[in-house]
């Protein structure tokens, strides 16, 4: 995968979020035969910058240093859709959900619009907006999770969060 990224002139920065230092992640890096750079984030600096609370995450950054796509929690580059999205971005500079879309159609617009409706008590309206956004970008995890949490609160708020169920939803494409 790394060689394919490089063939498009793109690069990979692997960030090990290991508060105990480099000794824990090093074996993983070496076992992967990694040619890319792995840095160690001992202070969770990137968690502060990107606002994530869980790993693994993926972020696509363009030539100017701008964030173009983010996948918080559950990022898996071996997943077919994700791998395709990453390679498409590497080759074309076009991030998921951007193809032929105006700014008003981008999922990051749908997410806050849905949130606004949700907070105003218009749950059905919020669901509609988030459904639209999820259709544009099925990899917008946060939006899909909001939908799931509304439609299946028992999977989120009744004891432990049911990650196995979430995995099934991803596989089923709901």
């Amino acid at each position, binding site marked *: 995968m790394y060689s394919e990224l490089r063939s498009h002139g793109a690069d990979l*920065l692997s960030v090990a979020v290991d508060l105990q230092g480099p000794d824990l992640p090093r074996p993983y890096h070496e076992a992967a035969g990694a040619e890319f750079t792995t840095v160690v*984030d001992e202070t969770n600096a990137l968690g502060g910058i990107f*606002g994530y609370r869980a790993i693994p995450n993926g972020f696509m950054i363009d030539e100017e240093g701008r964030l173009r796509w983010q996948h918080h929690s559950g990022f898996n580059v071996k997943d077919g859709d994700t791998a395709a999205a990453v390679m498409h971005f590497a080759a074309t500079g076009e991030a998921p959900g951007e193809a032929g879309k105006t700014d008003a159609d981008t999922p990051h617009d749908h997410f806050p619009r849905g949130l606004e409706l949700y907070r105003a008590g218009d749950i059905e309206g919020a669901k509609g907006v988030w459904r639209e956004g999820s259709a544009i970008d099925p990899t917008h995890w946060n939006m899909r999770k909001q939908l799931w949490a509304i439609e299946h609160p028992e999977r989120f708020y009744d004891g432990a969060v049911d990650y196995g169920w979430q995995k099934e939803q991803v596989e089923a494409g709901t």
Partner: protein
Amino acid sequence: MSGVLNSGDLVPDFTLKSLDGSDVSLSDYRGGRLLIFCWGSW
């Protein structure tokens, strides 16, 4: 909740130590497309 940065936002520069102890900054990658992959051994 979504991240604190939106698509199109400039990502603040950061510098972290690589496994061999050298400093690596986001700005080192300026001019090319980059995938940042955050993971943990735990």
